[in-house]
């Protein structure tokens, strides 16, 4: 079938529905009905007032749906995020740019409930639709790995981005931030801006996410003075433990809810008015922590170190209310993922070695993080606005 023919037929069908006499719909659309069936074929037998909700429903779902993804001759690739955070807008821009360049039909999926089950369902549906390659930020990595290996990687090229799976044989490669090193960078900021030690609180959505574990450990290891490139031991989650010169009051989790993070930060500051520093590991944490600090009206506000590029975080860095943030490069996650998948679909298996000489034994490609502080925030912010605003 010629590309677009199906689409034309859909619209014609849609038009025939809307053109039927029914009281509640006044819309009348005329579309050339060439290459279509006779509209009478679709005429419902139950001619009654009640047909209007039926028609409205059918018409609406068609209108909303528009045409299904165009696919004639293009490689069909999917990019699946782990939630619907704004963070992923940049990854979307990156993957769209690569898709345009590489002639790829892209399905960009942002599952709202950030769960592995939802991801599993999306993947099943995409496979039914004939997707040819998938890049995923795995939720609950340890346990979705089985599904990915058994039911996905055996059928189409699969790569992980942002969040890896522990079983490296379940995917062709991983690309993302080195979260432990990013965490160390945040630890350095704490050391620099609160050199005398004191009380420290860490805020994050969930401690069962691997990036949360690694970032937290990175922060702690720097404060402990441990010098290493990769994560080794895991510090337990107990409250009030000594970390070098610092007292880690607690690691506060909020189930990825910004308002809950703010409440927990307020409570923490009420209990510990002498808090020296607060570190937020996920994008929404720093703005929520900052609001809590402002409301608490303490004589000496704790310093705040954050992650990611929420605009409130960047505004606050400009104003000097947050000392710095560690940002990832989601645009590149998107861009590189699509390039790599396209190469795999075309059978170009040497692509990784040729394009990414620094790739490690487990096929991990690290996209560098950046430390954004007061003197480089303006330049970063301008560029970010350009990308997001498109």
């Amino acid at each position, binding site marked *: 079938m010629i590309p677009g023919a199906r689409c034309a037929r859909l619209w014609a069908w849609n038009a025939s529905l809307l053109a039927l006499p029914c009281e509640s719909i006044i819309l009348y659309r005329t579309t050339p009905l060439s290459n279509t069936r006779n509209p009478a074929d679709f005429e419902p037998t139950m001619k009654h007032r009640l047909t209007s909700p039926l028609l409205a429903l059918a018409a609406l779902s068609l209108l909303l*749906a528009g045409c299904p993804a165009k696919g004639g001759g293009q490689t069909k690739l999917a990019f699946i995020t782990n939630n619907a955070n704004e963070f992923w807008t940049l990854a979307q821009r990156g993957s769209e740019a690569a898709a345009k360049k590489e002639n790829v039909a892209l399905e960009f999926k942002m599952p709202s409930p950030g769960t592995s089950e939802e991801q599993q369902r999306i993947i099943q549906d995409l496979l039914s*639709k004939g997707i040819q390659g998938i890049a995923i930020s795995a939720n609950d990595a340890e*346990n979705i790995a089985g599904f990915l290996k058994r039911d996905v990687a055996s059928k189409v090229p699969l790569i992980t981005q942002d969040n890896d799976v522990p079983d490296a044989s379940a995917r062709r490669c991983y690309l993302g931030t080195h979260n432990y090193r990013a965490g160390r960078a945040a630890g350095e900021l704490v050391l620099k801006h609160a050199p005398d030690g004191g009380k420290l609180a860490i805020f994050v959505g969930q401690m069962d996410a691997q990036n949360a574990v690694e970032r937290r450990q990175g922060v702690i290891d720097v404060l402990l003075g441990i010098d290493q490139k990769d994560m080794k031991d895991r510090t337990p989650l107990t409250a009030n433990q000594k970390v070098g010169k610092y007292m880690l009051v607690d690691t506060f989790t909020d189930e990825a809810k910004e308002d809950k993070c703010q409440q927990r930060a307020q409570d923490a500051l009420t209990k510990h008015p002498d808090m020296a520093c607060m570190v937020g590991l996920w994008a929404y944490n720093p703005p929520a922590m900052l609001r809590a600090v402002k409301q608490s009206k303490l004589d000496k506000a704790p310093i705040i170190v954050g992650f990611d590029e929420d605009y409130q975080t960047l505004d606050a860095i400009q104003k000097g209310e947050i000392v710095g943030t560690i940002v990832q490069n989601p645009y590149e996650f998107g861009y590189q993922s699509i390039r790599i998948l396209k190469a795999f679909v075309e059978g170009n298996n040497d692509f990784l070695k040729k394009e990414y000489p620094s790739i490690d034994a487990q096929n991990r490609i690290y996209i560098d993080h950046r430390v954004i502080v007061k003197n480089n925030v303006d330049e970063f912010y301008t560029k970010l606005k350009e990308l997001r605003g498109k």
Partner: protein
Amino acid sequence: MKKLLGIFLFLAILYGLLLFADPGARSVQNHLNLGQRIGLYGILSLAVGMLIITGGIDLSMGSVVALTSTVFAMLVRDHGWSPIAAMPVVLAMGVVIGLVHGLLVTQVRVQAFIVTLCGLFVYRGIARWIANDAVKGLGSMGENWKDVLNTDLGSVLERWTGWDLPIPKVIHMHLVLFLIILALATVFLHFTRHGRYFFALGSNERAAKYSGISVNTYRIMAYVLCSTLTALFAIPYLLYNNSATPSSTGNFFELYAIAGAVLGGCSLRGGEGTSVGILIGTAIIWLLPNLTNMWGIPSSLEYTVIGVALLLGATLDEVLRRWGRVSKA
């Protein structure tokens, strides 16, 4: 069954749209997936549906799923129990939870909404606490059970009989499990005295009491049934997903379950509903996301489409019912 005409028509329309959406939507694999989702989550809708018929409500189901699946995973993986030994423990937890809900509602007379809302917090908290906020997975435990439950009926029969059967591999075992439970529930609800008492209790508690029904016993029974079925759900759920995340597993399951039951004709005021309706309601709930995926609707718009479609379905149902009443008169 005129009552079911509206939602059945709606389901038929959605299914028609789905078949039209993409060649992949018509595939055996997609139907297998759909059957799996409807079958698995149908258990929850049926559980809460029977409770809603008596005029009760359970908001704690998602947390019960989190707690029971976490315990199941911990018993099997961390303590080396065999799944067959862990199953009764999990089911017993469901019984106890339902009993507590039922007793609080009938004896202490705390509103069901509050009791089960508190349950929602308590069980989630316990699950996170006992698991120390870590994901609890089965790893490669329970493979025998996974081989039976995570596949289709045709494959299971072939393995058991050793023959090459000419059955299309489209009926997921979760759907089979659900249909068995649904059949039992249908007999109970619509063909036994006890089932009729459920409806009597839901439509007019006082009348039921004065006609000699032990309303408290039946109320407690409904809560126990609901929580036990929820705990039962946790077993195939965990074996399928292979892990439970105490902080997020089961979030909002109660809402989907209640939505499926209510869409399927269970009135939140009690006294109304059918088992077949619950099946249709669940099917609609799980057909919609599949439909949006197949149409390639952007993720950001997906919920709007689902919400609007559900609203239209409910409106259609109501209009058809009213029409039915008028034409009878």
